[in-house]
């Protein structure tokens, strides 16, 4: 074993994040760390990379007991990490981001051309050919992620940690990454891999360790643990929930006057003019690749961007949305895809975050009485099963999935008539995903119209009554969900096989 962690304990004020967890890693294996959000995966990784110190237990690296005082020590000991959120410096060049801290030098002077050459080579191994002297933030998130991977691989570590490296990569890029992982594995690197995509885990991992609520559930060989069993181990209960939704939502909702109707609505450079109707009680799914115009379409309906053509009617009456505030007063809510930067305010408590939109709608001069706040927040914390169920905890201490639920609660509390949710399940785990999906179905049953934006076709298919398919910033097809519609059919449209 290159790495052996025994009885790791980590306590945060009020929470035991890791409770006696064992974890081991053999050279030349790809080991998946599995668990729901809040199970302790991120904490374990941060312990391993020296970001957190431990409150109990032992870490042995290469047979020696170690205790890291910071990321630098961990890196020097041979552990390199790619984090879920790209942790590089956006203002530096690509080459620098790969080599900073270990730039090739002669007489203390950085050798830029040598560094660029090496960076080029390092990226070429990932089949990436970009201008390495360009600034990092001039590239897309996916490329930035590849640069982060190139940096980690280039460190030639004994242990390579990949924390959700694939969430911003497309299929081809994932394949490339996997090829590299295989190559590293052959060179005897131990790889710790975290992903919410179970298929990917099964494709690449040799073994897996499952955590739940900060406790070790077990270590298994991938071949010995069927997918369904894994999921039930992660969640701690059987997964009937998902199947129930399937049956519920296939009923066609009541027709009549649509709640919202867009005619020829468009914005140059963002999305070509489109027609769209959404009825009360209807779930409309937006499918398409990243960058196909999904978010842009949603932003138009929320007044975040202004259309430069077409018109919008709400309840049959023409409406002009000049700002999100306008949209909110008309009963439209938008839960953003980017929960970190656009939605959640980490320094505020769960309660304050949830109350935010409602308070904004009322105006700041009429504060919501504290008792009413507590009541409302309590109800939603329960309904959405936000963990930990403490409204006074700072949101930044919550896991990703739970932050997403807080964001959702914020909008639900305003009782919108149309709820737009952009990628609510990205980067969160199966259990939380199922809960959010179930919730969306429930809301629609209760008469709310939902515009559901997601990159995952299965999810769109499972929930939507109607699916709008986007390609190249154009709405290309509208499908009424039924038995004849499946992922392949949508994929065809996205790929351009069927023209409307």
């Amino acid at each position, binding site marked *: 074993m290159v790495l052996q962690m025994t009885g790791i304990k980590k306590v945060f004020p009020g929470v035991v994040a890791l409770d006696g967890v064992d974890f081991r890693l053999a050279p030349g294996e790809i080991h998946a760390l599995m668990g729901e959000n809040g199970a302790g995966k991120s904490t374990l990784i941060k312990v391993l990379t020296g970001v957190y110190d431990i409150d109990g237990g032992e870490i042995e690296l290469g047979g020696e007991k170690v205790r890291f005082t910071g990321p630098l020590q961990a890196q020097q000991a041979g552990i390199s990490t790619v984090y879920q959120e790209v942790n590089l410096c956006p203002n*530096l060049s690509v080459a620098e981001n790969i080599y900073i801290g270990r730039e090739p030098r002669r007489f203390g002077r950085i050798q830029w051309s040598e560094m660029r050459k090496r960076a080029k080579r390092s990226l070429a191994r990932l089949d990436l050919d970009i201008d390495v*002297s360009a*600034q990092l933030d001039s590239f897309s998130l996916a490329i930035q992620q590849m640069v982060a991977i190139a940096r980690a691989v280039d460190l030639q570590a004994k242990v390579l940690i990949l924390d959700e490296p694939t969430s911003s990569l497309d299929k081809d890029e994932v394949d490339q990454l996997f090829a590299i992982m295989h190559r590293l594995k052959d060179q005897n690197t131990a790889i710790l891999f975290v992903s919410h995509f179970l298929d990917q885990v099964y494709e690449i991992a040799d073994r897996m360790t499952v955590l739940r609520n900060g406790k070790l559930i077990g270590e298994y060989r991938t071949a010995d643990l069927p997918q369904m069993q894994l999921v039930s181990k992660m969640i701690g209960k059987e997964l009937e929930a998902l199947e129930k939704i399937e049956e519920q939502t296939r009923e066609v909702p009541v027709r009549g006057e649509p709640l919202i109707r867009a005619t020829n609505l468009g914005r140059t450079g963002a999305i070509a003019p489109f027609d769209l109707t959404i009825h009360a009680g209807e779930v409309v799914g937006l499918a398409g690749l990243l960058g196909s115009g999904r978010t842009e379409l949603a932003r138009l309906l929320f007044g975040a961007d202004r259309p430069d053509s077409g018109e919008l009617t709400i309840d049959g009456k023409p409406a002009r949305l000049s700002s999100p505030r306008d949209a909110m007063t008309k009963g439209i809510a938008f839960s953003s895809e980017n929960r970190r930067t656009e939605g959640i305010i980490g320094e505020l408590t769960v309660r304050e975050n949830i109350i935010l939109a409602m308070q904004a709608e009322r105006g700041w001069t009429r504060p919501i009485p504290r008792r009413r706040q507590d009541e409302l927040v309590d109800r939603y914390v329960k309904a959405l099963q936000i963990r930990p169920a403490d409204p006074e905890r700072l949101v930044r201490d919550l896991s990703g999935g739970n932050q997403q639920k807080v964001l959702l609660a914020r909008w639900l509390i305003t009782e919108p008539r149309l709820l737009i949710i952009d990628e609510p399940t990205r980067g969160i785990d199966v259990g939380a995903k199922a809960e959010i999906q179930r919730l969306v179905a429930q809301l629609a049953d209760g008469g709310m119209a939902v515009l559901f934006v997601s990159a995952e076709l299965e999810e769109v298919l499972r929930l939507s009554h109607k699916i709008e398919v986007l390609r190249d910033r154009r709405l290309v097809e509208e499908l009424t969900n039924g038995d004849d519609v499946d992922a392949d059919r949508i994929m065809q449209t996205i790929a351009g096989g069927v023209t409307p």
Partner: protein
Amino acid sequence: MIDTTTPPTAGPKTRGSGRRIYRPNTRHIPVLATLALLIVMYSVGVYNYDGFGDTQVILNVFVDNAFLLVVAVGMTFVILTGGIDLSVGAVIALTTTVAATLLAAGWPPGVVLPLVLLIGTVIGLGMGSIIHFFKVEPFIATLAGMFLARGLSLLINRNSIPITDDFWTRMAQMRFRFDQGVFISLNVVIALIVVLIAALVLAWTRFGRNVYAIGGNADSALLMGLPVGRTRIAVYTLSGFCASLGGVLYSFYTSSGYSLHGQGLELDAIAAVVIGGVLLTGGSGYVLGTLLGVLVLGLIQTIITFQGDLNSWWTRIVVGILLFAFIVLQRLVTRKAR
């Protein structure tokens, strides 16, 4: 040659990217804007006033602002990490006061000079350590440093102390003459050397690149295993050193030590850095820009002097307007880059 005021420090000012640039890199736009502004101002001066075109006029801008340039170079490092140093003006006062007092007491200059440089450096080191170890906002920590240094110098002597020391006088009067009788003082040579070293350090050393990395994203820098704490402390120490060196140059320039020297100078230094195109949030900018920024400030004063009938406070007004303009420019440039 001299009228564009571009010193030979231009070489390594870019990130060393070495990329052939046909379209200006967005990061260079603020510096280019400052350069353009400088050329326009100079042309306006030459066109409107007799004798403005003399080479000595532009050299005097260097002579009169050499100490500010040195201080601004230290400030550039601090601002590049996303911090700020409000103590530099007070450190200048302390340096000149201590130097003048000790020289008057008969201490040899060979002891006084290193000692005063050490004082500023230690103050910087202290502020940097407080900022890093106690997670204090740089604004607060250096504000405290400012009060401390100013208070100390007032405690030592509230009056202006003339410096009559031989060495000091010789340094103050040293001139480097070129043909046509134009000259620069020792201060200018020292300041330009400081600029050159700073530019080299920022572009070609790990320390320099770490400064940029911390300004770009300090959390990432930490996770990438960079010595964030050490770099941050070093940057304030460096700024403290530059401030006391600036103080020494100032005492050459004025031949006096006074506890009220350098009042508001920290703001001039910050203004010069910002006008020079360094992003106040950190991570972007060049020392060359700072040099141009100092020259802009100097040239404004020169123009107002040549105009003759303008109140010297117009300098402040113009600087204020320029600051606004450049901050808006930076905002636009960074927004476009996203």
